[in-house]
């Protein structure tokens, strides 16, 4: 097997992350699968950061347990990361920074600073020196790196031919240095592999692509880590495809304006993180009550309050399921990987439109920044489900203009009384009522957050409230019946079950694979839709095993609480909440303890 996990530790702002990005992209273009993990401080410049990339000729499910190779660009990086280097791994360091203690690892000393400063005479090239050493020792070939750097520089304002020359000099100098001064005694060597048709992108980028494909044509948001790139992507792309964008003054305004656009028949979205999501709750209730579609991305970060803005946590599940006062049905979806970020955001738009309610899309910090290589064939043209009552107008969206348009409709001036008696909120067996849209020749109505009758007129009669509550919740039942069930992964006759949610799926499946190889009878299930829950599939799974482990990156065990409340499950809780995702090894240990 051709595989290596490389971790680079350094200072934020000195090219650690950008060097890692280049390595990942170059390896992917060379034909390898890649999967990255990074940490960075909340500060703009300075502070410790690290970048880890797992490079393999086989599909990768997690970030890897330990680094095979650790490159430390300063003493602090060594102190922070050395415990994560595997036994017998490789440590690369600059002897002018520090001298490592003796340990169970191979050491290569490379004078990064001296090569950059004295030989290349441009200290900025230090990360190129590092990449040159990686190429020389493990692969990929220098040319793969050069190609990526060239394409990055051609898009940069700093671009000039001298800088590119210096970069190439730095790469070559480091490669030459390692071949002349070091004796390779490690087993890691990435050989040539067949090229594959893959794309390399992170979760936020996949969400933008999916939203555009789903014909989202209005976005409003307020900057917040780690969701801002979604807003920036939509700001840039929407005008290119006929949509509009508004940076709101706060998150309440962001979701309010999304509901305004949605009322106008346009597919609309906002994206935020926990603190912004907290502010949006009044509008989630309005979306549910007025039955207006809206897609809300919550890129979860470590909480509560301001918490740790750049750290990973899965702690908004309980909140997403219940945010807001009163009983307000909503759909909650949690993607597991980059492919899901694309396909499930499309599903989120279709579910919002079909069931006329808010759809909360729970990604997290690790997924927003995780770069994966993904088969290009996954990114297909989206199937678009029109709103009930708007099918005839759906074709308007295809030409890239905003969803509904008045073209070809008679302009109405003052309509008859019966028009305002249109049953916008008609009781139906599915709970889904026809929805009309201004400017399309469909009947006028008033959407309201007040309890209302079938026409949308305010109505506080007990019978009406009961019937309306039941109608709104009936849509969730319809959604549960219409959605696909999650599939079981692993042993058909398992005695140990693992249930997870969100970005941990690959890590759990890798742990299941490793446990199966060791002879454990184990299987896992990973529901992507968490409201409505796929009751049948989960109950069958729970009943089929003796014990259920629920690993979650949060303190309180939010999925375990939910499964306990709904199915009486006494789960074995495995909680990690330091801001770093699980490794497969950690989940494997939990399985071993139970088995």
């Amino acid at each position, binding site marked *: 097997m051709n595989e290596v996990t490389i971790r680079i530790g350094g200072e934020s702002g000195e090219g650690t992350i950008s060097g890692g990005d280049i390595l990942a992209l170059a390896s992917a273009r060379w034909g390898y699968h890649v999967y990255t993990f990074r940490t960075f401080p909340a500060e703009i410049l300075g502070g410790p950061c690290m970048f880890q990339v797992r490079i393999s000729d086989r599909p990768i499910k997690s970030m890897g347990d330990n680094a095979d190779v650790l490159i430390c660009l300063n003493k602090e990086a060594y102190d922070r990361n050395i415990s994560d280097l595997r036994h017998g791994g490789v440590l690369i360091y600059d002897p002018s920074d520090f001298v490592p203690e003796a340990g169970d690892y191979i050491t290569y000393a490379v004078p990064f600073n001296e090569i950059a400063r004295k030989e290349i005479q441009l200290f900025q090239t230090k990360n190129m020196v590092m990449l040159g050493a990686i190429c020389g020792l493990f692969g990929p070939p220098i040319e793969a790196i050069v190609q990526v750097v060239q394409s990055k520089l051609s898009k940069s304002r700093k671009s000039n031919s001298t800088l590119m020359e210096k970069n190439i000099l730095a790469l070559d100098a480091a490669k030459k240095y390692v071949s002349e001064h070091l004796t390779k005694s490690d087993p890691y060597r990435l050989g040539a592999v067949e090229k594959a048709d893959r794309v390399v992108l992170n979760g936020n980028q996949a969400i933008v692509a999916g939203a555009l494909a789903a014909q989202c044509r209005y976005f409003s948001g307020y900057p917040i880590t780690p969701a801002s790139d979604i807003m920036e992507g939509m700001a840039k792309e929407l005008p290119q495809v006929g*949509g509009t964008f508004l940076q709101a003054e706060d998150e309440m305004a962001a979701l309010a304006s999304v509901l305004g656009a949605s009322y106008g028949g346009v597919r609309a979205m906002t994206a935020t993180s926990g603190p912004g999501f907290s502010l949006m709750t009044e509008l989630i209730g309005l979306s549910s009550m007025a039955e207006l579609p809206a897609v809300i991305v919550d890129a979860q970060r470590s909480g509560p309050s301001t918490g740790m803005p750049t750290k990973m946590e899965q702690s908004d599940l309980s909140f997403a399921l219940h945010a807001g006062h009163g009983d307000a049905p909503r759909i909650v979806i949690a993607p597991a990987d980059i492919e899901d970020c694309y396909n499930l955001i499309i599903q989120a738009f279709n579910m919002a439109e079909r069931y006329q309610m808010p759809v909360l899309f729970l990604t997290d910090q690790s997924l927003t920044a995780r770069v994966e290589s993904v088969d290009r064939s996954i990114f297909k043209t989206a199937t678009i489900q029109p709103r009930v009552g708007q099918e005839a107008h759906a074709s308007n969206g295809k*030409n890239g203009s905003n969803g509904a348009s008045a073209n070809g*409709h008679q302009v109405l001036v*003052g309509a008859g009384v019966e028009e305002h008696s249109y049953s916008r909120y008609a009781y139906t067996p599915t709970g889904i009522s026809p929805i009309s849209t201004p400017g399309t020749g469909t009947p*006028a109505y008033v959407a309201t957050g007040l309890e209302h009758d079938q026409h949308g007129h305010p109505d506080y009669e007990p019978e009406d409230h009961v019937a309306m509550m039941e109608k709104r919740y009936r849509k969730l039942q319809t959604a549960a019946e219409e959605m696909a069930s999650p599939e079981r992964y692993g042993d058909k006759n398992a005695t140990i079950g693992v249930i997870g949610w969100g970005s941990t799926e690959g890590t759990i499946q890798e742990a299941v694979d490793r446990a199966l190889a060791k002879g454990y009878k184990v299987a896992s299930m990973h529901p992507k839709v968490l409201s409505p829950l796929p009751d049948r599939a989960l109950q069958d799974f729970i009943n089929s095993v003796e014990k259920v482990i629920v690993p979650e990156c949060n303190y309180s065990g939010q999925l375990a609480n939910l499964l306990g409340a709904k199915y009486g499950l006494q789960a074995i809780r495995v909680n990690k909440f330091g801001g770093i995702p699980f490794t497969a090894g950690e989940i494997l240990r939990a399985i071993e303890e139970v088995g």
Partner: protein
Amino acid sequence: MTQTVINPTPKDYKSEVKPTWCPGCGDFGVLNAAFRGLANLKLSTDQTVVVSGIGCSSRFPHFMKTFGFHTVHGRSLPVAQGLKMARPELTVLAVGGDGDFFSIGAGHLVHAALRNIDITVVVMDNEIYGLTKGQTSPTSPHGHVTKSTPYGLLASQFNPIATVLSLNVSFVARGYSAKPKDVASLVEKGVQHKGFSFIHVLSPCPTFYNTFNAWDDAATPIPQGHNPSDKGQAMMLAMDTEKQYTGIFYQQERPTMDQAAHELVQQSKPFDIEQYMKRYV
């Protein structure tokens, strides 16, 4: 079936929902003025959306036959702006009271003014919280005794016209609900104005703070000869605490954000996922 009325009358805009307001409420005058203003403009009920927040006056959309969106407290402005950005061909009005626009939603007013999105705002100001039965409002006068200020209001009074003038709002006007024809004319002009139009309407609450007599005396048409492009003069009129001037204080045509956004869209092409993903190869 829908019917087309070539020469609409105000009653063509009236819905079958009966207003919930107290007898004598100023908001009746504003509602009738809205019917009249929209009829004069021959606006289509299909192309017109009235957005509101929460409060007595925010029930407004239910009483109209146009499209309407009765939202949550304070958020009518962002809802209306989102709708106008996404559907610029629609006529969008945001209506509500002094609590909605100057207290819980005051933060939105600042940004709506800066963006100059082409919507028309009608504030029905009664200087009191009516729906919650008589607490102080940002526009209540200093010293005013209400249920929530039993020892008199300790804060100073909010000046709506002076505030929006300072925010560079592009159409600033005031009317008095007891003069519905004048209010109708302001609604008409506000809707016609391309940009963010702000119409402050004195609309008394006979139940919790009857200001009819005071405003009958104070409401004074803006002196003839006032130049609506003279912001300094407009500010002088706005700062007068004895008189409540009515009419157009200030008007300036300038680019709107919805227009600018839709000019950007003119070069747009249909989205093509295959083409789009090339950047990530």
